[in-house]
């Protein structure tokens, strides 16, 4: 008897709607940065989060990284209200790719910290540069067992 374990897990894990509500509740935190997310934004980001989990063959069991990304990157000097939701969506995608590529060697916070550092100090708020040049360099470092140092980049 073959049971699809991944499917069983997904059928019980917190629904996108719950994540969307959690995202909306972050408005209380990000409003100090003159940022906010609408209901549609929250649903979109929850959907992106779910899609990224599936595409990267991952299983969600705890607090979504999307919430941490929103709270962290709200402080970025390169983010404004006009492109906030879209940028966060791109960052969520980059996060899960990095997490999978790093073979879970880095914690959620470590990946987000590194992403924020690169975003602010190296890629100048450019998502493509962040995803390609900067994160790839980091992953290469991890895979080769080299010590990662922010100064090298």
């Amino acid at each position, binding site marked *: 008897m073959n049971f699809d374990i*991944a499917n069983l*897990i997904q059928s*019980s*894990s917190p629904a996108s709607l719950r994540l969307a509500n959690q995202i909306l509740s972050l408005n209380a935190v990000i409003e100090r940065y003159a940022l906010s997310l609408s209901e549609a934004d929250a649903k979109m980001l929850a959907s992106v989060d779910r899609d990224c989990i599936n595409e990267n063959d991952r*299983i*969600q069991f*705890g607090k979504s990284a999307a919430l941490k990304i929103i709270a962290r990157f709200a402080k970025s000097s390169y983010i404004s209200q006009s492109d906030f939701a879209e940028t966060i969506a791109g960052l969520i995608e980059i996060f899960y790719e990095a997490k999978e590529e790093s073979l*879970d060697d880095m914690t*959620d916070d470590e990946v987000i910290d590194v992403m924020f550092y690169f975003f602010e100090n190296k890629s100048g708020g450019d998502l493509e540069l962040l995803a390609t040049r900067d994160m790839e360099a980091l992953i290469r470092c991890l895979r080769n067992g080299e010590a990662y140092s922010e100064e090298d980049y």
Partner: protein
Amino acid sequence: MGSIQKNSPLADFIPDYSCYTLSLIWHCALKEMISESRLQQIMDGIFIEFAEIAEQYTKRESGSVSKEIGERLYTGALFHFDVYLLSLDSHVKAMQELVSRPTWEIFELGRKLIEIIDRDNCRIFKAAYKNRLETINRSYRHVMDKAFDLHRKHYSARFAPKELGTDLSYPLLNNRQSEIAVPGILFVRSYYTYLGYENEFCSLFDREDVKNLEAAARKAGGMFFDANIARLAANNFFINLLLGRKEAILAVTEEDRDELSESLKGLYGASIIYALEKSFAPFKDRFSSEKTYRYFFDYIPEFARILKRYGIRNGDTVTVFP
């Protein structure tokens, strides 16, 4: 497992012991023995236990894991349920527990049982090891000298209770290991329990005789490199019993073989079984437990069947000592 009444909705339940809880849930859902809301409660409850295990696994520093690890942790969580529900030794009771008991309680009871079984397994292995045989049989030496340590190294009561972590490929008497349907530490428990019976049985005989028997069997070409040693010993021992000897003897000469071949002619299989059961009975007190005795008592019909069908074959049903 306990018997189920004919008209019970569990009468046609075919359990999958590799994932007992899921197979029981699936059957109960199909037969509508469980409401949808209760079904969702159970699955949510299993997820909560899985999520807590995953949190601990990631030291509460990640909210997701790779699919491979997630599935392993989830099946590990499920195994806690399996262990408890299987311990009830009744599909009906297992179903009743699933339907009525909170999932966190089932999980906790399974967790405690896993700890007990794990401790028991160490004791069972030590008992088997006490009577271990001296042999060049590679797979036997692996299960006695290395496999249990490898299992303990890779096993984790919390994260990987279902992991075997090694192979236990030494074949047991009558291929018993293929009848052990349960996985993980439950398999280890059964396997080493049976191996303990076999080692104890072989300790009835002189150690050198067992070694010589094995060597003679290899020479006769009847023994594959990793064949079961207890079977060799049981065969020769039973041959001696059929010859009317009352001691625990392994040695069989060519004259013995010829004498027995003659006396077996015209004998029904049932007569051979009866004769063996009667002559084996006095040895019951020489075993540490009834179960050890019964393990070999239950082999008698198979031995009689092979003897009747294939006759006396050197290196197989009997090994002639040089």
